[in-house]
């Protein structure tokens, strides 16, 4: 990973973190009504994995966090407008912040039911293969979601048809209040790859370089037509399941322990050590993030709510192939 890429990933991690902190403030202050599953602690893997993508690749992200969108390059004022259910976002108030979409960059959207993304990812893979393209699909999902039947069907279908899909599991130790070891019969979710005869790998999800390397390998493989892979990124959900979660099901000590492994300061330290980052450039990035967010919040505030009657639009497309 070259320095430019390292810095780019770092900047996106930082911007994502600051954006979520701001979103949490806005929600707690009652200034936006949206519903948010924060991804604090998982930005390293999200940003690093997405850094492997070409602009024309497809992305099916999971429900946790803003880093996917930040990493993919969706303007953050749009994310905030979606959160607030305002115009100027990506989905006209229809889907909120859980359905950010961006066709220009292959961001296909989000399934409200967990695991709904797996078959859709396989379907995008079918498209690529039928058209003879060399695009790939990245499909993110949580440890809990790995127990949905759609995982099995879509991974098997992708494997038998050698579809260019990379399945990326974000194993953050929890699914709401359910610890991974009680929901998921296997220690490393990557072990499930054996059931489909595809590569399966577990990496430290808080180490962007390790994630990048593993996902890059899987992406290259897929691009060459060699089929799908499963990459498991071990990480931790540092905040509650949603903003406002009482977290009555896990100990403060456990959470504290994981804060010490927070990927953001860890990567920062590494880049400082490597002299890729300096105290000055770091301060600049912080300032830049804050300025970007301030501006985006302002934009969001200035945007109107959609006209109520637009609720009736977007059910059907009026066009045909005729």
């Amino acid at each position, binding site marked *: 990973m070259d320095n430019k890429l390292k810095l780019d990933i770092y900047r996106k991690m930082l911007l994502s973190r600051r954006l979520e902190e701001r979103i949490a403030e806005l929600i707690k202050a009652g200034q936006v*009504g949206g*519903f948010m599953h924060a991804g604090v602690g998982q930005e390293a893997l999200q940003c690093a994995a997405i850094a492997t993508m070409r602009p024309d690749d497809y992305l099916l992200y999971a429900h946790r966090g803003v880093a996917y969108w930040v990493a993919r390059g969706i303007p953050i004022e749009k994310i905030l407008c979606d959160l607030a*259910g*305002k115009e100027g976002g990506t989905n006209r*108030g*229809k*889907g*909120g912040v*859980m*359905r950010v979409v961006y066709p220009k960059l292959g961001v296909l959207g989000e*399934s*409200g*039911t*967990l*695991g709904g993304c797996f078959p859709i990812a396989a379907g995008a893979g079918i498209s690529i293969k039928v058209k003879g393209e060399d695009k790939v699909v990245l499909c993110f999902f949580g440890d*809990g*979601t790995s*127990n*949905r*039947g759609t995982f099995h069907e879509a991974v098997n279908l992708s494997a038998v048809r050698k579809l260019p899909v990379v399945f990326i599991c974000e194993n953050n130790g929890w*699914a*709401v*209040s*359910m610890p991974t070891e*009680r*929901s*998921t019969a296997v220690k490393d979710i990557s072990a499930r790859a054996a059931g489909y005869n595809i590569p399966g790998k577990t990496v430290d999800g808080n180490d962007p370089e390790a994630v990048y390397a593993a996902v890059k390998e899987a992406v290259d493989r897929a691009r060459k037509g060699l089929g799908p892979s499963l990459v498991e990124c071990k990480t931790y959900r540092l905040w509650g399941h949603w903003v406002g979660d009482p977290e*009555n*099901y896990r100990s403060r000590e456990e959470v504290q322990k994981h804060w010490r492994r927070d990927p953001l300061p860890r990567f920062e330290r590494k880049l400082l050590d490597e002299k890729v980052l300096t105290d000055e450039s770091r301060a600049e990035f912080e300032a830049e993030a804050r300025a970007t967010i301030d501006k985006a919040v302002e934009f969001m505030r200035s945007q109107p*709510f*959609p006209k*109520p*009657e*637009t*609720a*009736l639009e977007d*059910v059907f497309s009026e066009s045909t192939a005729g």
Partner: protein
Amino acid sequence: MPTITYAEAIKQALVEEMRRDPSVILYGEDVANFGGIFRITAGLKDMFGDERVFDTPISENALVGGGVGAALTGLRPIVELQFADFLFTAGDEVVLKAGMWRYGHGGAYRIPLVVRCPSGATATGPEHGQCPEAFFMHAPGLKIVSPSNPADAKGLLKSAIRDDNPVLYFEHKLLYATRGEVPEGEDFMVPLGKASIAREGDDLTLVAISAMVPKALKVAERLAGEGHSVEVIDPRSLVPFDRETIIESVKKTGKIVVAEESYKTLGVGAEIGAMLMENALEYLDRPLRRVAIPDVPIPTAAVLEAFVIPNEEKIYQACRELLS
């Protein structure tokens, strides 16, 4: 009579029935340690142990199908889905397994299964806010209830748990915090299949379902102020469905409005209209009015959601139209 919330009423029913019958178990995502994402089941694991109350993986097919299997083999499982919308995720298990296993095997088995389905739009979008009762009313073999107040919530849940058939129990999320009087005593039950006349009246029949009932009562009050006597009927149970109570009411009033949080096409109002057209055509002196979601998915933004979800004003307007 004590006044408790709808959420507390559900919990009371669960506790009483689990105390009464050791074959009643309860499971679902986050129901045990967390106490349910709507906090209905908090404390139950401590009361009944972790075989009878347990957390499961995110596997709705296995949850509902597992409920069928447990019911076939002698338990009375209660499965909590986190959102009623997830019934579709377990479509086969709900419609073809729970609904048809008994019939397809010639009545060899009973399926005393309850699936608890939190329903209703709360600005969480198309896949977390539906009231999908009408889909499942079309499916043979399933009983369906949708209580609108704490007493019915408790009484119907107790009946559902004791029923030897699969029951989809729809609990409206916006009703959880509403309060009402609930009779004391473990014997208090509300039978499935009996509508309640929530308010008597002579000029118009207003059938309202679940969270529409409190709204309908306010509309009736308002119309009373304008000199109109509105009868509010709460079917409570959608399968079996108490057609008689509605037919009798319409014979008296000649006018019918149905208010529901379903999609309009083939919502509950469609069946009510059709069965009235079959059984009471000569008594109907004004057209049917259905107040429902105008056949669009439920949008997330509050301002859009408010436009599609029936509210008091829309119900009032529909009634006014018929009364004028």
